């Protein structure tokens, strides 16, 4: 069962060549995913993050 699903482990590796740079598609996908995740972490609003006033601020007013 596991064998039929192992699309990564089998077959020849796919590589991208770009001047001096040579990288496997798998590694490239991981690096791109990391960058996307990082950017998302910066721009996606954190739940309950904004506009919710803190108890302390309420007390101070």
């Amino acid at each position, binding site marked *: 069962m596991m064998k039929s699903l192992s699309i*990564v*482990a089998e*077959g020849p590796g796919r590589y991208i060549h770009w001047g001096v*740079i040579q990288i496997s598609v*798998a590694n490239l*996908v991981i690096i791109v995913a990391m960058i996307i995740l990082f950017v998302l972490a910066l*721009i996606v609003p954190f739940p309950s993050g904004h506009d*919710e006033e803190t108890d302390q601020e309420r007390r101070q007013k």
Partner: protein
Amino acid sequence: MTRDRTPDSHDFPTRRYDLVKEFVITLVVVLVASLGLAAIFSSPDEKPITMSAWANADPNNLVTTAASELAGTTTSATYGAPYNSNSEGQKLGPIPLQKWGGVRIPIDSADLVLGPLSNTTNDPAVSSAVAAWKAAAPEQQTKWAADYVDAIGAAAADGEAATGAGGDPANVAAGDYGPVPALSAGLLALAKTGGLEGALDSAGNFYGGDTTKSLLLLADGAYLEDQAVAQNLAGDQWGMMNEVGNAPGQPWMWLYTFWYQIKPFSTSDNADVEVWALMMLLTLLLMFLPFIPGLRTIPRWIPVHRLIWRNYYRRSAGRP
């Protein structure tokens, strides 16, 4: 940023936050992601190369490698520390770091051939070849082996014409090679039986487990490297980052790997120690970045933090 004016975090207003819940949720997320990625993408597991696989796939190369071990011309024979004193090893400028480590894993390259064959008692031709080798003077031994290696030669490659017998021991010109052809052929025969790894690694101690000798012999030949190059694993192919097939390798090694691709490292005899030293230096720079003027101010110049703390800045800007 001359003086650190960062206020105490405990003096700020607070809001409810559940650290334990956060940890438990991330744990479940990572667990599910790992189980899922493993089910979809599996992991590579290519069988190790055996000596018999090498012997069957490229017998000529194994014979040549054996003769070269006897001649003392292989990579491991001329390595220097920690295996022997036959070279100075790599240097960082004038500093012989490799030599300073000392010869703490002594390997006599001729022993990679003679060791396994000395324990073979069922082949009289091999036994008498070992005896003839041991009886000869060192200069004679080296001459036999070097002459035999030259006589075998190499096949034409990369625009260079073939030498000697074109890499085929069967076509070697007649000459005085002493017991070297018999020893090399004996090692090939032993490798084909599947017994060579054991003879190298566990002879005399029962427990194998230290594969230093087998790996050195295997790496002295061409078979291992040919397989690796075909899989994009060689050092000049950014191989350190890569895995066999389409599996992800070690993408975090990108910088370490990168230096090997460019000059001066790609053409240096001391590339390994130079790249190591450079990476250590860069790691120290990263580690002590909080104390390095200029570098530590980059986050102010490129204000990504305005995005991260946008709610806080908006809120405090609105305050009277």
